[in-house]
């Protein structure tokens, strides 16, 4: 919200530098984003009246103007087309500076000396957004009654500082000059001045001859109306226009400007109807079945029966709290106006505004909540101003429909509690004083307690914690001493699974893998490309950001492939990645949250093969105390059917590993060979054997035997190993497959597996009599079960 410092100073004597004032506001809870002088450079530009306009003797497009600048008359040559005799304009006299820093001197225009120049909006540095292109292109014409020889910097408030404040959602009362003035007065501990309202003691109720108001919906908590006869619809006086402009609002005419002025000043949105256009003697606030309304901005809006309308009894004339209707707009011919000052329920306005996609100064104030106690005050303030500037004559009487007036909230505050809660030590008087500065009514009662009445505009104050915040911010958050927590000693620390997570990541990093960070969303299309679209178990979002992000991923594989694809296409020759993140699965029970499962995904491309990745997994398992995992052929459809396996520890499925299916390679634009592994982190953690026990170093030598086994190529090596282990008893210390051979030496469709077996007994030296029978048993079973032969 834009706040004019000059306007603020009409209420509070702020006599510190703007920057310091900004700090005070920020530290007391009204965050100042920026402080900007309207027009920093402008100087020596004066108001002047054009007395005479003559054609330039040597130039068709130039005119020579005689201008009265109060003290004397000057000749100014201009090419502007909108100047006329009698016009009051800003004159940059010799030595003046315009908004962009240009210095103005006397110059010769084809033989005629010009002692300065007339200024446009842009040259004055005023808010260009508020003016039409037409006005922007010409000289800025000031009201005819403007005194001459005045410095426009002062007159047009070009020296004003515009404070952009960010208001918090709870402080709807701060959405006005007076609201900020109250905060400023409290923060600076200064008094605040009153504003004038229409106070005539009206004896007659003439208004009843014109209008009655009915409120048929509780979303309107108060409706105040005042009627005024219009003397003339014309531009507002400059002092009103200037305040509107410095608040970012475009001046329109005296009637509309006053309604905007009061909204900016007090925070109460007002609306003025053309009484005659209402074509009715009543206003009814209700919802209707109408489908369309044309609003003041000449746009047709689709309305419905959930939106609160101001009607003339039959048709809507305004969308309550959002915007007026074109059918009751103020025009130059308006003779009587209805001034509406109402309070609409914030949620109703918010939903209406949202449905219409129409947010206005009025709706944004109602959305946050407006004090119903303000409605009549604002009506009377506007009435005062309209009368004061000579725009209207007042019709006596006021309508005020206010079925359930709010009663002031009462709270009590324990001084000891507030001190203990904040961690300060402040006297009862000091606390009372702070709250009084904030317009609370404070009464001291016995035993260190204050009885407090909350002003109606503070709708955010509900309990003692809210009062504590008021005390804290008046005391100054920065003045609260920083302390170290007392209380019980807390050990804290990571849980075993959190430590395990760190350990796993460290191992992967140590082996050259980079941790990735990918989003949780995927789509039907992306999953189909992954051969993994299982439509019944997916978690689909109601309101995704596009189809591409409509499903919560059930696997991390897709995103890893996208990472590989990106890197491959950016010519990074190889890469190793991993990520530990959640996957999401529809729950079977309807009253449960979707199941989230943390998965570890590892991927590689460029230089590794299946066995490289498998080795990585085996290393992770070794570090987890898991020594004999099984990798049995099989796995998901995104993997190469001949190069995939499921990883088990005992009977627990940890996950799967393999090469990416050629079709997926194509779909994801991947390098020809990519390898991935996805493991359930929970299963992995639960399979961990964490207690490490020391085993004595061997005292007796080992005995080594090499075995080359020839068997059919399609028999997995793991079956051979299983048979060797099974028949070796506990003297087999280790087994290593050191060669796999296929080729000329052996028959087609056969392979030879060469194992190094290491036997050892921990109590004696083994000899041939111990080992030979074992080898024989092994060979026998290899032969009978796998039809495998020893290769001599």
């Amino acid at each position, binding site marked *: 919200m834009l706040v004019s410092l000059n306007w603020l100073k009409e209420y509070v004597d702020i006599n510190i530098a703007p920057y310091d004032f900004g700090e005070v506001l920020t530290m007391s809870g009204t965050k100042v984003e920026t402080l900007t002088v309207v027009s920093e450079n402008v100087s020596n530009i004066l108001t002047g009246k054009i007395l005479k306009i003559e054609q330039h003797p040597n130039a068709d497009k130039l005119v020579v103007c005689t201008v009265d600048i109060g003290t004397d008359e000057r000749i100014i040559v201009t090419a502007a087309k909108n100047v006329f005799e009698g016009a009051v304009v800003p004159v940059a006299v010799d030595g003046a500076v315009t908004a962009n820093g240009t210095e103005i001197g006397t110059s010769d225009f084809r033989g005629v000396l010009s002692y300065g120049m007339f200024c446009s909006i842009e040259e004055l540095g005023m808010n260009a957004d508020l003016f039409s292109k037409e006005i922007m292109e010409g000289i800025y014409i000031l009201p005819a009654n403007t005194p001459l020889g005045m410095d426009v910097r002062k007159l047009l408030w070009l020296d004003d500082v515009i404070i952009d404040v960010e208001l918090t959602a709870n402080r709807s009362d701060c959405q006005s000059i007076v609201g900020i003035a109250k905060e400023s007065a409290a923060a600076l501990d200064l008094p605040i001045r009153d504003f004038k309202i229409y106070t005539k003691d009206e004896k007659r109720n003439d208004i009843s001859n014109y209008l009655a108001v009915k409120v048929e919906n509780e979303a309107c908590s108060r409706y105040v109306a005042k009627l005024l006869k219009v003397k003339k619809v014309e531009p507002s006086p400059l002092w009103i226009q200037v305040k509107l402009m410095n608040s970012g609002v475009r001046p329109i005419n005296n009637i509309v400007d006053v309604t905007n002025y009061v909204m900016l000043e007090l925070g109460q949105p007002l609306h003025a109807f053309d009484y005659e256009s209402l074509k009715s003697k009543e206003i009814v606030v209700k919802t209707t079945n109408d489908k369309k309304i044309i609003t003041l901005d000449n746009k047709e809006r689709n309305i419905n029966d959930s939106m609160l309308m101001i009607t003339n009894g039959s048709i809507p004339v305004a969308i309550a709290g959002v915007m007026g209707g074109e059918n009751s707009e103020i025009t130059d011919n308006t003779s009587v106006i209805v001034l509406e000052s109402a309070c609409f329920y914030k949620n109703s306005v*918010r939903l209406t505004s949202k449905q219409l996609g129409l947010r206005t100064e009025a709706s944004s104030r109602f959305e946050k909540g407006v004090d119903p106690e303000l409605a009549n005050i604002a009506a009377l303030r506007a009435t005062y101003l309209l009368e004061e500037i000579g725009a209207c004559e007042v019709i006596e009487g006021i309508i005020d429909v206010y079925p359930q007036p709010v009663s002031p909230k009462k709270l009590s505050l324990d001084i000891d509690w507030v001190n203990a809660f*904040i961690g300060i030590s402040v006297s009862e008087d000091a606390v009372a004083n702070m709250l009084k500065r904030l317009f609370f009514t404070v009464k001291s009662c016995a035993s260190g307690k204050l009885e407090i009445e909350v002003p109606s505009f503070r709708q955010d104050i509900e309990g003692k914690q809210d009062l*504590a915040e008021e005390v804290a911010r008046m005391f100054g958050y920065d003045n*609260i001493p920083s302390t170290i927590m007392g209380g019980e000693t*807390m050990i804290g620390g990571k849980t075993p699974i959190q430590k395990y997570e760190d350990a796993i990541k460290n191992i992967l990093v140590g082996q*050259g*893998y980079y*941790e990735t960070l990918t989003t949780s969303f995927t789509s039907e299309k992306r999953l189909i490309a992954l051969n993994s679209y299982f439509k019944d178990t997916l978690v689909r979002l109601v309101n995704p950001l596009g189809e591409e992000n409509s499903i919560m991923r059930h696997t991390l594989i897709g995103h890893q492939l996208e990472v590989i694809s990106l890197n491959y296409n950016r010519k*990074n020759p190889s890469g190793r990645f*991993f990520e530990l993140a959640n996957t999401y699965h529809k729950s079977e029970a309807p009253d449960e949250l979707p199941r989230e499962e943390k998965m570890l995904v590892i991927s590689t491309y460029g230089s590794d093969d299946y066995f490289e990745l498998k080795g990585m997994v085996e290393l992770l398992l070794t570090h987890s105390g898991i020594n004999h995992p099984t990798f049995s052929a099989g796995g998901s459809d995104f993997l190469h059917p001949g190069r995939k396996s499921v990883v088990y520890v005992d009977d627990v499925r940890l996950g799967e590993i393999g090469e990416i299916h050629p079709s997926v390679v194509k779909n994801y634009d991947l390098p020809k060979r990519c390898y991935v592994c996805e493991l359930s982190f929970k299963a992995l953690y639960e399979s961990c054997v964490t207690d490490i026990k020391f085993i004595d170093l061997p005292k007796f030598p080992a005995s080594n035997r090499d075995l080359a086994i020839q068997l059919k190529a399609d028999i997995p090596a793991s079956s051979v190993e299983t048979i060797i282990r099974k028949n070796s008893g506990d003297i087999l210390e280790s087994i290593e497959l050191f060669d796999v051979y296929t080729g000329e030496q052996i028959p087609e469709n056969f392979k030879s597996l060469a194992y190094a077996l290491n036997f050892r007994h921990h109590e004696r030296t083994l000899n041939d009599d111990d080992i030979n029978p074992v080898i024989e048993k092994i060979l026998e079973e290899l032969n009978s079960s796998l039809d495998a032969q020893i290769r001599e």
Partner: protein
Amino acid sequence: MELEIKLIRDHCLADLNEVEELKALDNVRIKYLGKKGTLTIALKGMGKLSSEERPIIGKLANEIREEIEQNITQQKQALEQKEMEAQIREEVIDVSLPGKKHLSGNLHPLTTTVNELKEIFLGMGFTIEEGPEIEWTKYNFDYLNVPKEHSARDLQDTFYYKDDIVLRTQTSPVQVRVMQERKPPLRMISPGRVYRTDEVDATHSPVFHQMEGLVIDKGITMGDLKGTLDLFAKKLFGEQTKTKFRPHQFYFTEPSAEMDVTCFKCGGVGCKVCSNTGWIEVLGCGMVHPNVLKACGIDPDVYSGFAFGLGLDRIAITKYGITDLRLLFENDLRFLSQFK
């Protein structure tokens, strides 16, 4: 005999003088001192000597033997030294040639940042808590005192799975779960992934990360909140860091504040990073709202506490000077590998 031995010595020393390698030295040793060496053979003839001569010659022979052995040892050491020097000369390498490549990856910069934050709070006795990312609206909003009609609940702001299930918009629901499950005193942080319906750009992502912290105990004050977070800021950004607490508003805390820290780039004088203000907004915090405590079964008249929340992605990109948030989620190796 004496002459003979002396002659052997002279020959031997002469031979030794000419030796230039270890092998030859050994040959000389064998030639004179070996089983069939000249000195050995000569000494075998000692038996023929008279008993007067024997001790004299014996002594002389031993002296000469020792002399020769000593000579050999010296010569051996010299030769070994020479040989080693030669070896060293031959083995000179170009030490400026590059080392052999050892592969190592690294953690994602977000993880590294989060780890740093975790360490700070673990040191203060906090635990790390996790909770579901897909969460009941009651945990994400209701128990946190967010008004029923608040716009944060709109479809424009929050991803919905069902009417009463959303993608959590903050990690605060974890606090609610912990408060409902455990008794105070509590000190916890909950880093994690959160979601809001922001379109992707240089500073926004619909998926991002937050860390919330919570302390509940008897007698926790706003001064404790300031003290704890000030300590945190100093540990994260350096000893010289100053903090500033500005009043603010959140639904789950009252009083509420935002904490700024002196810009870690310019130290507070003003630069591009801090938009010339000298300060950087880091987190939101406040005293836990009594409605939140009540909703979690904690008596606000007995216990008080504070909570805080900060955006992890933003801390990470500010810390490393990363110019575009999208880089965090893109995973280009040329990006990832910068954070060793």
